[in-house]
């Protein structure tokens, strides 16, 4: 699935980072956010001295339990709220500057759009907010609707969109101005496995095209497939951060997946492992690997679609 | 929300508030001088019109409230509730003091409708009828005079005053003065004629000569009504005007339906 784009990607006006590869896509430095309580409410520290860095072109996953400060961090990065201490920047530009948002596309959690605007009008509206206009904007909006599978809903008003459709529309509006950074807050929440798979494929495509992605999700297995680096937050602090492969590798275990192995071959392998018992190696588990429920669903759906296609032909 | 911003906002509001008050005064005075804003409503109006209507009147709906009260007054007129008609028209004219027709109608209801009602009422003793008649005619005059304090240049109100003096008070002198004022304000030919007619019946020769001059002016402007011609012929005889200067027409036959007799299009022979 291709993301429609203009081949001549000029740099955003006034962007300082173009010729400077060292400039991170997102930089959070010592971010602290304290919400002052109103009458009868106590002060609440949502984020404490948080620092993170997202390099250009990588997919960074920010995970943590509910209330750990992920959304607050995202909002601070997007300039939707002001840090109590610390600073955040996008491609070297402070988040406080409105211009910094020219390079960002944001998909909020449970996105909601104006009920009275149809799909096409919504994308044109957001495109205009980013400085786009005219027939080119309309064409781009149609392409994005096609990409997200919403072309039939182009003239349907937002009030008639399902949750999944709203999510896809949200992704389309985040992409309308070809941002260099995508911030996705729970992009697959409420989306069926097929839609979810599509979104994850898109994220991988973004990475291939050099678009930086900052994503949060509770669906950890999905993040595992797409992220390069992960930051884990808890109680407003970063508790672990690093490359995904490094974080989740069980260093002292090795996995071999063999196809069409005979029983004899398996016995030989077990014997080899037994010989290495002196060095501490041992066989933990042997058996058929399990597919995931999601993969099973996808395969079944694809087969059903294929069968239906054949039925139509005959 | 940052305290600094709240303080800034409060300061801007305060500065705006203090700066605007003298400007508001000046603009309000200017608009009142140009008769675009009515004087403030009094508490008396509030008591008479009810809270909802007072609120509506405060909210820029005075004209509508006046129209609604007018409907009530018209119903009272149909039911011959003259005291109620009087009080409601007082209220209406307070709400819209620059509406000529309200003063006009208030005066008409008092000086003609109410006065005639009491004069003809067989339930009332004859001695009292005359007094009530006069009181209501005076009430009509009072409405017109009050209206003229707000609208001193209203030809219509001066003309209606003239009508009341002519048909109700039977004072040609006062009627002539009122019609002349009306003519000065409106410059309508029939008002000049009406002045001349009233002056023509006065005993004083100076008044009669003035009537003659006005009638000649009207004649010169093209008025050929039978009454104009008849009165000119009368004065030509009385003052011994040389034949060469007299108007060529002969004395006309008098007609009861001569529209030239009346002060204007709104009145019939009884002055209504």
């Amino acid at each position: 699935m291709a993301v429609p784009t203009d081949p001549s990607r000029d740099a955003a006006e006034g962007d300082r980072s173009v010729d400077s590869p060292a400039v991170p896509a997102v930089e959070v430095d010592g971010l602290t956010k304290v919400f002052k309580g109103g009458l009868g409410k106590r002060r609440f520290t949502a984020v404490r001295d948080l620092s993170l860095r997202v390099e250009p072109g990588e997919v960074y996953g920010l995970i943590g339990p509910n209330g750990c400060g992920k959304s607050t961090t995202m909002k601070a990065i997007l300039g939707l709220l002001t840090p109590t201490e610390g600073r955040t920047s996008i491609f070297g530009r402070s988040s406080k500057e409105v211009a910094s948002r020219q390079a960002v596309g944001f998909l909020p959690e449970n996105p909601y759009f104006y009920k009275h605007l149809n799909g096409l009008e919504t994308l044109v509206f957001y495109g205009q907010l980013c400085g786009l206009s005219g027939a080119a904007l309309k064409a781009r909006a149609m392409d994005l609707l096609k990409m997200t599978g919403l072309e039939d809903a182009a003239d349907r008003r937002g009030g008639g969109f399902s949750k999944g459709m709203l999510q896809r529309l949200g992704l389309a509006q985040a992409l309308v101005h070809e941002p260099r950074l995508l911030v996705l807050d729970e992009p697959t929440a409420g989306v069926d496995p097929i839609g979810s798979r599509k979104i994850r494929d898109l994220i991988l495509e973004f990475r291939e095209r050099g678009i930086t992605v900052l994503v949060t999700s509770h669906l950890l297995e999905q993040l595992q497939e797409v992220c390069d680096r992960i930051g884990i937050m808890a109680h407003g602090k970063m508790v672990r951060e690093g490359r995904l492969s490094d974080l989740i590798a069980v260093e002292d275990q090795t996995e071999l997946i063999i196809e069409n192995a005979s029983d004899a071959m398996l016995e030989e392998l077990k014997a080899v492992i037994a010989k290495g018992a002196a060095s501490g190696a041992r066989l933990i588990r042997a058996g058929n690997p399990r597919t995931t429920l999601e993969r099973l669903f996808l395969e079944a759906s694809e087969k059903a679609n294929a069968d239906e296609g054949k039925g139509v032909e005959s | 929300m940052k305290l600094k911003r709240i303080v800034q906002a409060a300061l801007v509001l305060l500065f705006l508030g203090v700066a605007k008050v003298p400007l508001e005064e000046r603009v309000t005075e200017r608009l009142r001088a140009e008769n675009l804003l009515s004087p403030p409503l009094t508490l008396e109006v509030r008591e008479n019109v009810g809270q909802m209507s007072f609120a509506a009147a405060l909210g820029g709906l005075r004209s509508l409230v006046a129209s609604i009260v007018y409907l009530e007054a018209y119903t009272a007129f149909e039911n011959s509730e003259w005291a109620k008609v009087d009080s409601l028209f007082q209220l209406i004219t307070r709400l819209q003091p620059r509406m000529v027709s309200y003063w006009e109608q208030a005066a008409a209801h008092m000086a003609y409708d109410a006065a005639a009602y009491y004069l003809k009422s067989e339930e009332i003793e004859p001695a009292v009828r005359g007094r009530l008649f006069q009181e209501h005619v005076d009430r009509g005059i009072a409405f017109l005079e009050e209206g003229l304090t707000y609208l001193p240049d209203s030809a219509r109100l001066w003309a209606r005053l003239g009508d009341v003096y002519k048909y109700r008070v039977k004072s040609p002198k006062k009627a002539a003065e009122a019609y002349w004022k009306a003519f000065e304000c409106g410059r309508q030919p029939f008002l000049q004629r009406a002045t001349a007619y009233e002056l023509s019946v006065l005993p004083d020769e100076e008044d009669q000569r003035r009537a003659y001059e006005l009638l000649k002016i009207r004649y010169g402007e093209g008025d050929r009504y039978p009454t104009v011609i008849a009165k000119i012929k009368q004065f030509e005889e009385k003052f011994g005007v040389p034949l060469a200067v007299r108007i060529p027409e002969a004395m006309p036959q008098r007609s009861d339906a001569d529209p030239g007799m009346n002060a204007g299009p709104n009145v019939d022979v009884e002055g209504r």
Partner: protein
Amino acid sequence: MKGSYARFSLRRILALASATLTQLIRMRILVFLLIFSAIVVGVGFVFPLPTPEQQLKLLKDVSFGALQFFSVAMAVVATALLLPRDLEDRTLYTILAKPVPRHEYLLGKLLGLLALIGGGLIVMDLILCGVLYVRQEMVFQEFIAALRSEGLETPESTAEVRLMVDQQGLSWTLHAGVFAVFLKAAVISSLALMISTFASSTLFTVVCTFCAVIIGHGQQLAREFFFHRHLDGIWEKAASTVFAILAPDLQMFDIVDNVINGEAVPSGAMLSMTGMGAMYVVGYLIVAHLLFVEKEL
């Protein structure tokens, strides 16, 4: 295709204004215009009143009453819905996550609303003028026929009736009255927008704004007390000072009552009212921006 960021962009403001206008129109505001038309036609032709002046006056009174009701209701309720609803629905996040300065967001919203109110007033003005013109001619002919039947029809009487009917009939000053109604609505809208930047909900905004509108219609009285009459009590003095300073003088725009009566509206008066209206709108927008610019979303 990539856009570029400009510090000030009329296109962004107009995009927001257009979306706001579309939103309000698709909320079936036009139904009100139909109801208005029915009222105007009904009042114009159904109510028999004794004099032609009263007939025409009642038509104008009811029409302008509906105009004022529409504009004030829109100004309060529609404005109160804009920002709080965007915040509640989190549409505001997606908008402000784009390169949109917050003051442009406020400007765009207000402009869209004023476009709706202005457009609605223009349509209602045209309807009123059409009905008034037709009724004016009918009333004139009826009166002349009555004079004719009593043998009182003369050129002079016809001219007088024409004058009387024309004074209460269609005139250019009626449009000035409609513009004054629009100015008042603009002030109320900007006031509502300002309140909505710190209000906790739509209902709170509506209630506060209605209170401010009521106080605004009594602000002249407060000024009257402060400047021209003696107030003995310190609390009375303090209260009248506070109202005179804080509340806008909404009665200043109530020239409709006298415009209905045929009073001319000099251009100087229009400029003064427009200047005051602009001052209120700009002032309240500045305050709204100060309260909104660092509002936590």
